[in-house]
C-alpha cells in the first residue's frame, strides 16, 4: 500500500495501471450509455426523464467521495507529515469540482420537469452548491498563493474545515424535510430500487470512478513532476 503515500511508488504503479484503467473507463462508459438509454425501462411516474439519474447519482456520489478522500489526505499530510497528501489534493480538487458541477447541472435538468423549477433552496441543493464553491476556493487558493509551503498547508486546513459540509450534504434529506429524494439506493438496508434500474446505475458509477481515476493519475503525475522541477 506504499503507493498511497509515496510519490515514486505511486509513479511506478501509475505507469503500470494507467492504460488498463483508461481502456476500462472507455468500455464501461460506452456500456453504461447503452444500458441507460436502451436497455432500461421508463419509470412509471417520471417517464424517460428518469434516465438523468444515471448521470446524476454517480456524479453526486463521486463528488462526495472525492472530497472525503481529500479530507483523509489532508489529515495525513498535516498530522503525519506525508507530503503526498498535498500533491493529491492539488491534483484532484478540479476533478471533484467537475463532478459537482455535473451533479448540479443534471439535477437542475431533472428538477425542471419534476419540481417545476430549475432550483429550489432546500438543504440538499444548497449544501451541494456550497460544496461546489468550496471546491472552487480550493482551486483558486492553489492558483493564487505563491509560496508553496504556505499554500499547501492553508489549503489542507481549509479542506478540513470545509469537510463539515459533507455530512450536511449526505444527511440533509434525512434531517430536514426537503423536496429532494431521500436515500433510496445507498441505504444501508435493502435498497428500494428496481433491479432493472440498478444495473445501469452500477455500470455508470463504475465508469465514472474509472474516468475519475485515470484523470487523477495523469494530474498527480504532472504535479509530482512540476514539484521535482520546482515549477509550482
Amino acid at each position, binding site marked *: 500500500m506504499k503507493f498511497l503515500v509515496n510519490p515514486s511508488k505511486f509513479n511506478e504503479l501509475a505507469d503500470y495501471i494507467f492504460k488498463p484503467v483508461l481502456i476500462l473507463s472507455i468500455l464501461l462508459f460506452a456500456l453504461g450509455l447503452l444500458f441507460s438509454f436502451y436497455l432500461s425501462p421508463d419509470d412509471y411516474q417520471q417517464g424517460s426523464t428518469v434516465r438523468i439519474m444515471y448521470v446524476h447519482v454517480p456524479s453526486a456520489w463521486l463528488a462526495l467521495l472525492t472530497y472525503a478522500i481529500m479530507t483523509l489526505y489532508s489529515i495525513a499530510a498535516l498530522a503525519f507529515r506525508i507530503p503526498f497528501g498535498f500533491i493529491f489534493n492539488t491534483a484532484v480538487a478540479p476533478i471533484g469540482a467537475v463532478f459537482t458541477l455535473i451533479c448540479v447541472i443534471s439535477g437542475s435538468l431533472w428538477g425542471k420537469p419534476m419540481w417545476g423549477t430549475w*432550483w*429550489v433552496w432546500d438543504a440538499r441543493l*444548497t449544501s451541494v*452548491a456550497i460544496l461546489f*464553491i468550496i471546491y472552487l476556493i480550493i482551486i*483558486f487558493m492553489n*492558483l493564487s498563493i505563491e509560496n508553496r509551503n504556505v499554500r499547501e498547508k492553508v489549503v489542507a486546513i481549509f479542506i478540513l474545515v470545509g469537510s463539515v459540509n459533507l455530512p450536511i450534504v449526505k444527511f440533509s434529506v434525512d434531517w430536514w424535510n426537503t423536496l429532494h429524494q431521500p436515500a433510496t439506493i445507498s441505504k444501508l438496508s435493502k435498497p428500494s430500487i428496481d433491479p432493472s434500474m440498478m444495473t445501469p446505475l452500477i455500470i455508470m458509477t463504475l465508469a465514472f470512478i474509472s474516468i475519475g481515476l485515470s484523470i487523477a493519475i495523469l494530474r498527480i503525475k504532472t504535479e509530482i513532476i512540476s514539484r521535482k522541477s520546482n515549477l509550482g
Partner: protein
Amino acid sequence: MIILNKIISFYYREYKLNLSGFQDILTNIIFFFVSIFIFIFSIGPDKEKISTLSIGIVWTLLLLSSTLSLRKFYQDDFENGSLLIMHLNGFSFGFIAILKTFSHFLFVQVPFLLSIPIACIILNIANDKIIYLVASFAVGSLTLSCLGSISSSMNLMNQRNFLLGSVIVMIFSIPIIIFSVSIINIEESFNSLISILFGILLIVFAINPWASGLCLKLSIENN
C-alpha cells in the same frame, strides 16, 4: 492610428493588472454568487420572499462591487506612478479618466452583468423580466463607474474638505437605483424609465472627464 494603438496598450496593461489570468474574473463571479447565498441564508428559503427581494439583492451587490473596487480605481496607479506615465505618454487627465472608467466597467461590472441571468434563475426571477434587469443594470452600472471615478479621484487629493466625496457619490447613486428598481416593477413604462436612466448616464458621463481630470491633475501637482 497611434492614438488607437496607445489606447489598446492602455487596456492591455489594465488587463494584465486586473486579471492576471482568468481566475480573477471567476473570483468576482463567485463573490457575487456567495453574496447571493448569504442573502438567501439570512432570508430563509421561502420562494415568495426571495423573489420579492431579488431585484434589491442584485442591485445591492452591484453597488457593493463598485464600492469595493473604488480604492483600486486610481489609488494604485497613482502611487506607483503609472498615472504619470500615462499622462506623459500623451493622454490628457480627462482622457485617462474616460479610459479608466471604461476599464472599470469592463473588468468589474461586465462579469456581474454576465452572471445576472444565472442569478435570476436561482433567485426565481421571471424570464421576461431578466431582459429589463440586464438593460437597466447595464446603463446603471456604467453610471456607477463614472461616479466611482469622480469620487476616487477626489480621494486622491486626500484633503479633509473632500471627505464628502464618496458620500456625495453614494447619494447621487440613489436616484439611479430608484429608477432602475422601479423599471422592473412597472414594466409598462420601461421605455420612459430607461430613457431617464440614459439621461442621467449622459450627464454623469459628460461631467466625469472634466471632474476626474481636474482632481487627477491637482493630486499629481501636490504630490
